[in-house]
């Protein structure tokens, strides 16, 4: 198992170098001079030139790239924000708690609602409950999160005044963003649970369990759920990984100081080091979650565990 983890972490290195390369290329191709953006229109040509030299912006692409990767790999230094002058890692770390809280809340809500609804829908396939659940799941999937967020603000914040419309410090402030963000995740988890359960319910070993005289409840609980869990774990992990990358739109609507909003601001301000560092962070977070999900499989499925030697 340890060997497997080590191998996986090792295989992360080329991915991260690749991600850095892609972002580097994108930023390199972006029109507009970051020096000018940072220093403002009033800055003298001399100051701009000085900034370019100091930041190495005039060096050839490949030199800049290698220098960045070298510093990041050997010194753990991913630069300083052009705008705030603080280290990029500090900027990201201070935005991280809000993002992880938002992601965790949404995923927890999704698990608590999506899995039970999905199971019941599958057991009672083609029933009224199933149709209604599936319809709402599809609506949840189709609802733009930024619109749902605005509607929630309109109803619960502007009209009813139950929850604040921005910030993320208190519990009540976290309610609306978490609900808005979870709608889609609930829908995805519900649909995945249903289809996974449907497949499992029809399998031969479920028939075997029934032929033993087992009660229907235990057939579902002991035999079906364990087997249906694998794709559900995958989808939940994938969603969590994506949300860790910053729920960009949700954070922007509710003015939550998370990683997503940080990234959008950085892109708008041409704050190159922050954009690079941010994307790197997102890729790392995503890959780590994926690794954890793969490890979680081992506990769910003995067949997969055997492959991890």
């Amino acid at each position: 198992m340890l060997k497997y983890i080590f191998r996986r972490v090792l295989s992360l290195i080329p991915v991260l170098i690749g991600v850095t390369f892609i972002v580097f290329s994108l930023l390199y191709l972006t029109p507009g001079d970051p020096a000018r953006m940072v220093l403002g229109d009033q800055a003298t040509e001399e100051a701009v030139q000085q900034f370019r030299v100091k930041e190495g912006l005039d060096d050839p692409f490949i030199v800049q790239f290698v220098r960045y990767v070298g510093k990041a790999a050997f010194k753990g230094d991913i630069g300083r924000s052009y705008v705030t002058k603080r280290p990029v890692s500090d900027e990201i770390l201070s935005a991280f708690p809000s993002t992880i809280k938002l992601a965790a809340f949404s995923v927890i809500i999704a698990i608590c609602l999506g899995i039970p609804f999905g199971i019941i829908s599958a057991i009672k396939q083609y029933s009224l409950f199933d149709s209604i659940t599936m319809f709402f799941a599809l609506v949840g999937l189709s609802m733009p999160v930024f619109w749902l967020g605005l509607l929630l603000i309109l109803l619960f914040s502007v009209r009813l005044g139950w929850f604040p419309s921005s910030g993320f410090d208190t519990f009540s402030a976290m309610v609306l963003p978490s609900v808005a963000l979870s709608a889609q995740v609930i829908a995805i988890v519900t649909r995945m649970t249903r289809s996974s359960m449907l497949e499992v319910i029809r399998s031969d070993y479920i028939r075997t369990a029934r032929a033993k005289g087992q009660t229907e409840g235990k057939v579902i609980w002991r035999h079906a759920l364990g087997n249906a869990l694998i794709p559900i774990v995958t989808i939940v992990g994938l969603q969590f990984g994506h949300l860790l990358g910053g729920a960009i739109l949700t954070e922007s609507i509710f003015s939550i100081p998370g990683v997503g909003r940080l990234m959008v601001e950085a892109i708008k301000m041409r704050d190159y080091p922050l954009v690079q560092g941010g994307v790197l962070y997102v890729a790392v977070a995503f890959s780590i979650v994926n690794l954890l999900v793969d490890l979680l499989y081992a506990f769910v499925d003995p067949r997969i565990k055997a492959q991890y030697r």
Partner: protein
Amino acid sequence: MSTQTVQKRRSGIMEVWHRLKKSPMAVVGLILIAVLFIMAIFANVIAPFTYSKQNLMHAFESPSSAYIFGTDEFGRDIFSRIVYGARISLQVGFIAVGISMFIGGFLGAVAGYYGGKIDNTLMRVMDILLSIPSILLAIAIAASLGPGLFNLMIAVGISAIPNYARIVRGSVLSIRGQEFVEAAKAVGSSDLRIIFKHIIPNCLAPIIVQATLGVATAILTAAGLSFIGLGIQPPIPEWGAMLSGGRSYIRDYPYMTLFPGLAIMITILALNFVGDGLRDALDPKLKR
């Protein structure tokens, strides 16, 4: 032999159509999409006003018989803007998916067909792209290309390439070993011929489903980008941009955010209906 396969395929399509018709949701979805297309094509006939006509005398008017969805801060008719917006959203959705389907499908087919080093390299690159959330990737690409309709399509299109590459590669891998492909190889068909004649038609089903759902995702992503100001710029009536504009007035004029959002949701819902219906129709095994 070839006429026989053609006939078989046609009856296959009829069979899928027959099954699709049985799903009420899919039919509703198809009708809604048809309505959207009509709105987009005949926008200048249907819309009572042009999308950019300002009339400050009539700014912030609530929905009425003259302006059924009300007017915005410049007195522009929101209904007209939504009708014209269908043009933008459908264009972005379908063209972006076209881009990602074409490039992704090609890369996936090549990777799956040739295998080995080419496969490894291509899939590594796809893994790298997949480790960046697609909306973030789209934002980064949109930022580097600059705003505009065409750039938005490219940004959204590129960010979805890995999805198609993976699906096609998977289908190709499963089809490559099958006997009819071996047979075609044995009689000396060229690689390209095999890819286009045998492999692509056979992995069409999952691609069609992914593409339908992909149009929905593309429209949603594009609206999201416009919402945070990185997509289409005013005065072009993009639904996401309209939402973003209405956001400042949500307290007093909520209808300004209500209608554009509803337009997005109905479009996405319709596409999802059809996508789900298609998946069930193409693979009845999954449903039963």
